[in-house]
Structures are given as C-alpha cells and as structure tokens.
C-alpha cells in the first residue's frame, strides 16, 4: 500500500498569447517539492483548482495598445478577479504586474522606462515588508538579486494613494544599491521611490517587475534568490490549509 500522496500546493500559470515566461514560471514552480503546477489557457475560465495564480512575463497580445491592457479582458481574468476577491493568492510578474494594474487589482500604473530603452540587468531588491504571503521567507531588509527585463517598468501612482500604500506597508520590494541605499543608479526604470513590487490592501495580490522565476537555480546565471518569493507563497498556503483542516 502506497502512503497517501503528499498534498501539493497547486499553482496555475496563465498563458496569454505572447506570454514568454510562462514555461519558465512553470518550471520554476516544479523545482519545489511541495508544489504542483498547471497551465491555464487565456480562453478558459476554469482555474483547475489552483490555490495560487501566476500571471507570467512576456508580451501578452503583443503588448499592442498598452502593456497588459488587452490581457485584462481575456476570459481567464474574470476567474482570476473572482479568485482574488475570495482572498486567493495572485502574483503578477513583469507583464503580469502590468496586467494586474490594468485590471485594477493593484493600484498605480507602469510607464515607459525613464531611459526609453528596454533594460535587462541584475538589480538589488530590498525587502520592505516580510510579513506578507509573498515575502515571509525573507527578513525585512534582506537583499534579493534578481534580473529585471522590461520596457515599461516605471511604477507610478498618485501621491495620495502612495501615502496610503506606505502607511499600510503595501510596498514589498524596492531597488537599492549594494549598500542598501535608494539611489537613482540602482533604479533601472525611474520607478517612484524605487518601487519594484507592491501588494493590494489585503495582501493577496502582488505585482513585481523583476523575474523570480528566472532565479530559482544556482546552476544558471539568474541565481536562486527568487526561490524565496515562491517559497513564501507555498508556506502561506500550507499554513492556511492547516488552519482550515
């Protein structure tokens, strides 16, 4: 008799036409023994029982019109919005982040990079709030070194909303230099107050420009600092399951 199958945390990675980090996200999640993962097709409305949703990087619908602006209208996003409204964990990475702000699931917007060029480089991220479902495997002030690669990552938000977000500690990641300073040089895109990643008010929807899914294996150039983002989500869901069972 086999022992009862270990209950895996189920992730769903949404595939929009033009997504190009969907397979990287899928593979990244597969490297966690406690996680399982399915692809979710943009034309579907079924989340296949996923307990966490990843909106991956890429150029959904060619990023025509505006990044993420068309993706928000896809059938799967209705299901994702309902899922988020019920408290489900949703992470949007790069184009996924853009889609989340376009969908109104996160405040603010993502403008063209200050340098007007696509930028692919390693950045230092300082963890600003480690008491969230997406960062609990980190400590506050920790640095994560992860690659950004985008053309529209310049986070912007009105001053009033920003103050509210800061008071509520919704800013989870900021670009910093090696000494942990918020310098202009460390900021790859001109984002307001060096913001790299933000949460919604209820801390279940998170968007970040850097790519943790390209940072889960030490054997390749991206390093493995990104593991802590996924690990935080897995831990959160396992704890929720314990509480409810």
């Amino acid at each position: 008799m086999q022992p009862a199958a270990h209950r895996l945390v189920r992730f769903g990675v949404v595939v929009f036409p033009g997504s190009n980090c969907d397979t990287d996200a899928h593979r990244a999640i597969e490297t966690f023994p406690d996680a399982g993962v399915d692809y979710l097709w943009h034309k579907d409305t079924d989340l296949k029982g996923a307990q966490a949703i990843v909106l991956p990087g890429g150029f959904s619908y060619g990023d025509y019109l505006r990044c993420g602006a068309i993706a928000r209208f896809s059938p799967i996003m209705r299901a994702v919005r309902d899922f988020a409204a019920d408290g489900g964990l949703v992470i949007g990475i790069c184009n996924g982040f853009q889609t989340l702000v376009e969908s109104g699931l996160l405040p603010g917007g993502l403008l063209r990079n200050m340098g007007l060029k696509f930028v692919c480089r390693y950045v230092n991220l300082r963890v600003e709030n480690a008491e969230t479902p997406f960062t609990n495997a980190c400590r506050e002030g920790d640095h994560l070194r992860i690659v950004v690669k985008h053309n529209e990552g310049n986070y912007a938000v009105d001053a009033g909303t920003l103050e509210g977000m800061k008071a509520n500690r919704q800013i989870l990641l900021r670009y910093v230099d090696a000494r942990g300073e918020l310098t202009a040089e460390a900021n790859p895109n001109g984002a307001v107050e060096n913001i790299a990643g933000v949460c919604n008010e209820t801390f279940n929807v998170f968007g970040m420009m850097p790519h943790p899914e390209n940072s889960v294996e030490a054997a390749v150039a991206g390093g493995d600092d990104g593991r802590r983002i996924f690990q935080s989500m897995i831990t959160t869901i396992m704890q929720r399951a314990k509480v409810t069972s």
Partner: protein
Amino acid sequence: MTQRATVDAAVKLGLTAEEYEHICAIQGGEPTYVELAIYSLMWSEHCSYKHSRPVLGRFPTSGPRVLQGPGENAGVVDVGDGWAIAMKVESHNHPSAVEPFQGAATGVGGIVRDIFTMGARPIVSCDSLRFGELSEPRQRFLLDGVVGGIAHYGNCLGIPTVCGEIYFEPSYEGNCLVNAMAAGILRHDQIVRAKAAGIGNHVVLIGNKTGRDGIGGASVLASQEFDETLEEKRPSVQVGDPFTEKKLIEACLELLHGHLVVSMQDLGAAGLTSSSSEMASKGMVGLDIHADRVPLREADMEPWEIMISESQERMLSIVEPGRLDEVREVCERWDLDCTVIGAVTDSKMLRIYWRGDMVGDIPARRLADESPVIRTPSVKPAYLVDDPVTVDDAAYSPAEDLGAALTELLAAPNIASKRWAWEQYDYIVQANTVQIPGGDAAVLRIKGGSRGVAFATDCNGRHCYLDPYRGAKAAVAEAARNLSCAGALPVAVTDCLNFGNPEKGEIYWQFEQAVEGMAQACEALDTPVVSGNVSFYNESFGNAIYPTPLVGMLGVFDDVSVHIDHTFKDEGDVVVLLGPEAAWMDGSEYQKVRFGKVEGRVPDVDLEAERRLQAALRAAIGRRLLKSAHDCAEGGLAVALAECAIASGVNGGGRYGDPEALRRMKDGKGRWRGADVELPAALLAAPGQPQGVAGRRDLALFGEAPSRVVVTVALGDIDALDALLADVPHRVIGVVTGEALRCTMQGSELFSVPVSALCAAHESLPDRLA
C-alpha cells in the same frame, strides 16, 4: 493582365537580357508577367547564390556530428544524448541600411523561422553588427535603430540574445551589416525537411495576411548596390510583427512535433515564390498555387505581387487531407489564419492560378536549381597588388604614457563594452543562460542533464581587408578559441559572407581568398560548415565594405558545469600567457586608434599550433584547473588583462552570472581584482618583424597576434597546468592582486592604473551616443 513580360520589364525587375533569353528558352516563348516576376526573384543573387555557388563548394560540410548540412533552412548538429542543435546565420544588411529598426527586427524574425521550421525550439539569438564611425550622426541613428529592432523582436519572442559583436569602421558607413544568427534545440528524430510530398496533399498557408510590404526585397534591395535612390527603396523593407511570430513558433512546433504536417517551409526572401518552388523542387513534385485564395491585407493586389510579397510571419506547409481539421484546430487555438491555397501534383510544375485561370506555369526544378552560375574572373585588388609588407614600426612613434594609451584603447568603440546594446536584450529568458553577454562566448545549459552548448561569432574585417585569406582563416580560429576559452569543444560553423559587388573581379578575388582561408581553418579545426548565407552588393556609390566573412560557431560541453569565464577571481591566482609571444602593429586596433592607419601584413594563424593550444586549454578547463581564460584579440595583451580585471567587478565581484559572486557583491563585499604583470623581455623581440622593433614596449602591450590566451590558475595548480601544456608555449607573467592593473618590464613600471579607471573607460560607449 495588362503588363507585358518584355526584356525591358525583365531588366526593371533586376534580370539581365541574357537571363531573359534563358527564361524564354525554358518557357518556350515570352513568359507571363507572373512568371517573369517569379524568375526575377528566384534568379536574384540573394536567392540563387549565382556568384557564390561555384566557390562555396570548397567548404568542408560533413562530419560525424553533422545531421543536416547546407541546403536546408538550417544546419543540424549532434550535441550528444540524442540532442541536436539547428543553427544558421543570415544577413539583413540592405533592409537595415534603409530602415534600421524594421530591417533588423525582421532579420531576427526570418532567422528564427528558419530554426523552428527544422522542428527545433529556438534557444538563442546572436547578432553581429557593423557600422561606420560613431562620430557620424547617421551611424548613431543606425546603431540605435538596429539594436532597438533586435531587442523589440527577440525580446517579444522570448528567445535570449546572448552573444554577438559590434564593430565600427568607415568602410561600413554606407552599408551597415546586420547578421542575425539563431539556434534551436531538438531531438534527432524531430528533424523536419522542407520537401513537398504526397500527390493530392493540401498546400496550407499559416500566419499573417499578405500585403505589399517587402515587394522585391531580395532583388531590388539585397542584390544591388546602393546609390542616391536609397530612400526610394524603403517600401521594399518588411514590417515585423513579433507577436504573431511568437504564436507561429508555438503553433508550428505543435504541428511538427505532433506529426500533423508532412513538411513546412517559412516564407522569407521572395515569399511564396521561393517557398513553393523550393518545396516542389526538393520533393520532385509539382505544386498548384491559387493566388486568389491567399488572405490579403490589401484587396487589390495583383497575382505577381502576392507571389513575391515578403510579408513576414508566414509559413507554408504540406498537409494530408485527413489531418486538415487537426491542423486548423491548432491554428485556431493560436488565433492564426490557416488557409488551403493549393495542392501537391505530379506535374513537377509550379502552377499559379488566378480566379480559375492559370497565370504561371514553370518547371519547379529548373526555376529553383538551374539559375545561372556566374564565376567572375578574379583580379587581385589594386591596394594589394604590391604584396603588403610588415609595417616599419619606426614610422609609428611609441605612445609615451602607456597607461593613457591603454585607457584610450579601452574606450575605443571597437573594444569598449557593448553593455549599452546587450542590456537592451533579454539574455536570460528560458532559464538556460549560464554565461551572460560580455565574455568570450555565450554558454547555455541543456535542461534535463549535464550537457551544454556555447556560441561565438567573430570576424575582424580590417584583417580581412588587408588579407582576405589570412583574415578569414583567423576568424574561424578566433571563434573556436573563444569557445575553447569557455571550455567548450568547437564542432560546427555557420557563416555569413558579406562582400561588395561580385561582378567586380577585385571583390570576387576577396571572396575566393576568404572562402579558401575559412575552408582551411574549418578543416584543421574539425568544424564543418553546416549552413550559411552570402550577402553581396554591400557597396554604396562604388565603395565596398571590408570583406567580412562572419563566422558563427557552436561548441559543446558534456558537462557544462566545468565552464569558466574571463574574470579574475581570487587574490594570489597566477596569470599565465599561452601561445606565441610576438605581436604585430599591422592591422591592430592600436594602429587604427593611435595612428589612424590600417596597413601592413597581418599575421598568419598557424593552425596546428592553434589546434594544440585549444586542446590543451579545454583539457585544463575540463579538469577544473583554470579559474579564468580570455582570448587576446583587439588591443593585444594589455587590453585582454584589463578586460579580465574589469569584468571582476562590473558583473558582481568575481565569476559573473555566478550567484555566489553576486551575493558577495550584493553584500557590499565585491571588489575589483587587479594584477601585477611582469612582461617577458621576449615580447620585445618579435620574430618576423623587421629590425628596429626591439624595445617597443607599446607593441608588447598592444600589438596583436593570433593564438594567444590569458589564463589564471591557483598557485597550487601551476605544476599540473604546466604538465598539460607540454607542447604549448606558455609563460607565467603575473599574479592577481590589488585593485589596480600594474605592468612592469625588466624592472621598470610601464603603467599602473586602478581597475575602476579602466572600467570607466571601458564602459564609456554611452558617452559617444549622446
């Protein structure tokens, strides 16, 4: 059809009167206009290789690893464990000179289609670029547009752009070079060849609608010199849609790997014309094409326009009738048009129909394979008639401040870091990148095992100008050396041969010489040519580019974890120079930058010595004896040392891309690794150099020579390394220490410059672009 297919019409389409005669003979009289348009494209230089075919036969093209040699969309090479790599490089020079952003973007799109058409998933893109000097505003515009176009297209596809090079020489002012290379991975049994088969099968067009963009791209644009009509040629440049291409990749790989289609061919130069005639010719069958069934962007297109349009992101496939519904289902899922436009027949004719009438009827094989062959009588160019001799160094007064000369060289556009360009490219998507851009070679892992692959591109156009034979030979040797420096075994070549007008004897001579040099090096280094492309007519107002036979090379690792990069690692490591110690002024970057000259006799590569050097280098890396290795190329030994020191910091304090090093840097513990180097006196006595060079310390530092590599090794491993290098000249020249690069010779200091200052010079390219 009102247009007559007269000889005048033929000449307007780029054909010669002789070729027109030949066409009339094949067709048995005056062709239709559709037929004439088709011939004009298929017999253009770009599609027919009419000037190059007689010479290209010189290349070695077979070997135990070659699964598919030249003649298909891409070459395919065995890389172990049932894995194979499909690879090819192609020029998009002419379109990029007219419209840099779209020209370069569609260059990437075209080469990527060549790769997935073979059944391979594209895993890497490399771009080798040449421009005029950056002091010219137009050249900055071209550079900005080309790099932006590559980024736009490649990034959107999710294919990492991991290697490439950029050089600036006045000869490229009117004709920039954009050579796009791509490679993909597949299993041996997934190779698909572009051969139509199965009488009665459907001919299916998949992807974008057809418009008037790129009409005559291969003939009007790519097979003629540029003159004052450059701007008028803009409509011949295609417009890229990477979003559709991304969907095409996914849909086509699903169709190919699921065996839902018999074969597939992309629509590149000459569009539907070349794809259909090549598929028919290879399959020894006929094809009926109903041009009126092709989905159009512009409703009023004529049949000849439809047949030769180079609208992008389109694929032609052969589908069995019983599979059509499944093919449609896949295409619909990816929101791609999928239209039956014809059928495979046993006629061996390419027949074009328009609203039921036959408007073209051409023997497919004769069209595709029997284009004229032209061998221009070659003439040694005037500038080489008196065989060049090694320059008299006395005519070059040595730089007095050698440290300043070094920083000047590091800031020279040809040597300066190209970070400005490669940071615009996504070099990490797909999570295979082991070594990021900026080093000697791109290194990628193959998922699911320990294997890996490496890629490098090389060609020093200046050397090829001074001696096409030696320069081309050196390009192959250098590409192989770059791979060996990473620890990879070089196994195959794809080439892009960029030259001027082949109707001129002097250009043809350059071409023949370069092919001979490449062929000899490929034979000696066991790197057969598996695919390639020729780009002629790179001339403006009668001025030709430097002959630029670009070499793209594939290397393999059984265990990719042994790979190394060029960064200095740890305090106390020993610096060793491998290879000959003589160095030349002739054709060097120092000669160009400091003295504004390009002249002399470039050194010849000793292929046997090169082979031994690289074998020993790989053996040492395979045993994990070396900490770093770097090819000495432009700027000589001093620049190579400086680059090793600079890279120790800019990418994260040590082995860049290495998470441990990144962690150190991120913790603020990263630091520069400098070196103290004592140059051997032997560097001053250059065999083969005329009298009077003794004492030229500047040449010891900045002179150039092939087959030289700088490596570092832990002190404790020096004896083991020594044993491995028994038949390779080598000498300990210094030690990794401090945060400055300091060179001494016979006890006196030549220079000492902080690595941070070297880095500032090396990273100064953006200042020239402002």
